[in-house]
């Protein structure tokens, strides 16, 4: 049975606006060369500010500990020790760094994927069905957006230790599966884009409610889902307080906790400077590449949320 009489989905407002706005980037008041130079100059100076720490760590990762303290931080040292340093990072303590990295990938990847799916299902249901209690559910979750994440971490630890979940993979993974902000975005987006008559048509075709959500709802909501996924991914990847509270076993650490562990040993053991800078460099690269490549996806759903918030 074909659920897809789907009239080609109407361009969602964000796309349409972008399509109209893009060609007119050259709009606006005259492009005098002096202004262009001034504005671009300001932008360059600001870019230097944002890139300096990253540049520093790239340079620092190539140095030996002696050079790190003996030579200027912005210039290369006498020995080019990048490969030795990275080798040390990857092999130290039986490759614990790789393990931390994979833990982060697991927490952030699985957490963000499941969180997006759950937020989509719940957001779709709140937008497309009128049912008793829907306003209560939405109000409750909206309150959740405003509750500081760290305020729940401590009591969550107390709760999880009673359940015997503290200091396990689950203790970090389970809280990562919930994204109140994601539900908020999904509801707004589903409300604006999933056409009620389309859902009705699918029903008449005999499609079940869950099937309608999975085949029509999810597909139409894709732009918002990508945004929710990225938000949650970065949120979990960057999280520090929750794993810090929950985990005591180093083998379960995500990368943030692991590198902090190395960094805190630098004042006693100088070789940890090299491990820390090398580790920071290695863990920044994949995310930096991802951020820049996926930059355009941060727009779509985000504006919807921002405009109507």
């Amino acid at each position, binding site marked *: 049975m074909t659920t897809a009489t789907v009239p080609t989905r109407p361009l969602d407002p964000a796309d349409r606006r972008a399509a109209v706005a893009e060609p007119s980037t050259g709009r606006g008041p005259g492009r005098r060369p002096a202004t262009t130079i001034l504005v671009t100059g300001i932008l360059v100076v600001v870019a230097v500010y944002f890139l300096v*720490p990253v540049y520093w760590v790239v340079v620092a990762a190539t140095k030996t500990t002696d050079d790190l303290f003996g030579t200027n931080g912005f210039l290369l040292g006498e020995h080019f020790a990048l490969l030795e340093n990275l080798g040390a990072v990857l092999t130290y303590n039986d490759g614990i760094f790789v393990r931390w990295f994979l833990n982060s990938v697991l927490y952030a990847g699985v957490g963000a994927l499941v969180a997006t799916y759950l937020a989509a299902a719940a957001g779709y249901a709140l937008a497309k069905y009128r049912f008793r209690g829907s306003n209560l559910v939405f109000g409750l979750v909206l309150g959740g957006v405003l509750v500081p994440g760290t305020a729940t971490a401590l009591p969550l630890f107390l709760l999880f230790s009673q359940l015997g979940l503290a200091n396990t993979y689950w203790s970090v993974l389970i809280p990562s599966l919930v994204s109140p902000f994601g539900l908020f975005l999904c509801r707004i987006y589903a409300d604006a884009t999933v056409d009620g008559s389309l859902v009705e048509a699918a029903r008449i075709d005999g499609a079940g409610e869950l099937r309608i959500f999975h085949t029509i709802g999810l597909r139409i909501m894709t732009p918002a889902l990508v945004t929710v996924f990225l938000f949650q991914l970065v949120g979990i990847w960057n999280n520090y307080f929750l794993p810090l509270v929950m985990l005591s076993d180093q083998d379960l650490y995500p990368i943030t906790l692991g590198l902090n562990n190395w960094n805190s040993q630098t004042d006693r053991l100088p070789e940890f400077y090299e491990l820390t800078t090398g580790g920071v460099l290695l863990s920044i690269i994949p995310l930096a590449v991802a951020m820049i490549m996926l930059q355009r996806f*941060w727009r779509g759903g985000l504006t919807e949320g921002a405009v109507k918030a």
Partner: protein
Amino acid sequence: MATSTTTRPAAATTAGDRRPRRRSTAVTRAPWILVAPFLALFVLTFVLPILVAIGQSFTTVTREGLFGEEGVTSSFAWFENYRLALEDGNFVASIGRMLLFGVVQVPVMIIAATVLALLLESASARWPGLFRAAYFLPYGIPGVLATILWSFLYVPGLSPIIDVTSMLFGFEPDFLGAGTVLWSIANIVTWTYAGYNMLIIVAQLKAIPPELYESARVDGAGPWRTAWSIQLPLIRPALVLTTVFSIIGTLQLFAEPQLLQTVSPAIDSQYTPNLSAYTTAFAYNDYNVAAAQSVLIALVAFALSFLFLRLTNRSSR
């Protein structure tokens, strides 16, 4: 794809008398099936912990015997834990410190993000995509790593910035002293989140219909006038959103001060409210007072967000 256009009328007639009821129960059940998994996890990770925290904050635990070996009794303590939390001068001071931090850092960051967004969207900017990517990059760097990076740039002996200023101007700035370290933290937070806030504002700038720019130009408005009278009013929702998130974020500040503790003696274990709650819970093992502190932090965050939203709502009318 198109088959259903022909099958639809048939389905509608044959379904006739028995369909509606079955469908109506399906329609009442489906939303709950869709909401249930999210709701269950939300209750487990948000509602229950908040209830636990509130419960704990009103409980006091007394241990009998020297190490509690003769049993532990808990009893309802009214506002005793809140009294203890609020009588702790360091905790109250940490909230005051965050208010000072927020009053300076949040406006600076939001204004910087707005100016950058306006410049990037102006016709005069070259390579806007490249700059946007560079500004947004730090958001992908976890706060912990950002703090490690900046701490290397703050520490005397390691910092190339201090080397450069002492060479050029003959003075060595102290980034980690009692009077300056708060602003060194503000710098890390601004560095991490300015680009992210900028991107939200850019997204809303792109949503402004081009006709508005057109008519502004016809009316003879220059770039300043256009920014002030058209762009700023229209990106207001994005500004409100980013400000509220920044206020909540400020009260949650934890990783930056906790990591800088190792290099800056000016940061004590109660420097920020969250650090204070963490110390109370894990260094003093006093979960009840820590719970009261967590509740207070959440209440202050709520109150400030609410106040800000009220203020912006009123002035828009």
